[in-house]
């Protein structure tokens, strides 16, 4: 069975939801403490949402120096699937595993609402089971989700098919309506929306499951 490690920093608060979503689809999942310097035997890593280290200085700024991040970087460099959700996306950009930065939302509102996403590529560890053009209803919950990068980086991401999901109605001012991107190797993906909060009909949407199914497939391929 494929095993997903869910990294927990002080201030992380979505770890149980991610673990539940993975287990509901038949995967194994366990928490990994940020202070550890190595990962257990894993097939995929998720950095979940929350407020790692209180979001002090900038979201993700302190988390990039947590001991576990060295091991996560190594895992990613070897092609292992790594997904950052919301605060996890911010951690991955601060760590340099993903390009760009997440700025304060345009309009300065904390946004907690469902968002409609469009899948832009099925060539990533988070969307391999999805279809290009498919729309997904998945909630967002963030203050700093306004994806920002240089015009050159934006052009590169678009040319290289590395924009993974976009917002149909851009809620936060993100450049290119970007909700999620991947790295060159397509194994590291970050996105602001929370697929774990759309993993059961009781939550109002099951559209997030296609992402966890993709992640488990990528994990299996990596196992």
């Amino acid at each position, binding site marked *: 069975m494929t095993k997903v490690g869910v990294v927990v920093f002080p201030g992380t608060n979505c770890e149980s939801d991610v673990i539940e979503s993975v287990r509901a689809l038949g995967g194994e999942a366990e928490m990994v403490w940020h202070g550890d310097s190595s990962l257990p035997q894993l097939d995929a890593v998720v950095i979940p949402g929350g407020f790692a280290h209180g979001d002090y*200085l*900038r979201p993700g*700024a*302190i988390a990039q*120096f947590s001991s576990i991040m060295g091991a996560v970087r190594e895992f990613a460099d070897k092609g292992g699937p790594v997904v950052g959700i919301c605060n996890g996306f911010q951690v991955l*950009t*601060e760590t340099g595993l993903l*390009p*760009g*930065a997440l*700025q*304060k*939302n*345009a*309009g*300065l509102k904390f946004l907690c609402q469902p968002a409609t996403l469009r899948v832009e590529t099925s060539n990533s560890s988070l969307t391999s089971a999805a279809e290009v053009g498919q729309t997904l209803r998945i909630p967002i919950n963030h203050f700093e989700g*306004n994806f*920002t*990068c*240089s015009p050159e980086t934006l052009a590169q991401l678009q040319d290289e098919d590395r924009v993974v999901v976009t917002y149909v109605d851009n809620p936060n*001012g993100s450049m290119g309506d970007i909700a999620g991107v991947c790295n060159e190797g397509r194994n590291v993906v970050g996105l602001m929306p929370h697929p774990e909060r759309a993993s059961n009909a009781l939550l109002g949407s099951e559209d997030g499951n296609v992402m966890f199914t993709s992640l488990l497939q990528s994990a299996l391929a990596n196992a």
Partner: protein
Amino acid sequence: MTFSVLVEVQLRSGISDPQGQTIERALPTLGYEGVSGVRVGKSMRFTVEAADEAAARAQVDEICQKVLTNPVIEDAIITVDPA
């Protein structure tokens, strides 16, 4: 030697500043007309021990690059004075 350091972090020019824009929009409603170009940043003060001012500045520069700023969207104005 001890140096006192002031680091002013600001968004790079060209990067939109939602806080600055919001403040700028709010000012006229309070009766303040003619205020423009509002940019919001943050400042940090600390002291460093170094052989000389150049060494102190080099160290602060490195700290700014590594952690105090996100170079993708921010830069820093660094002021170093003998404490």
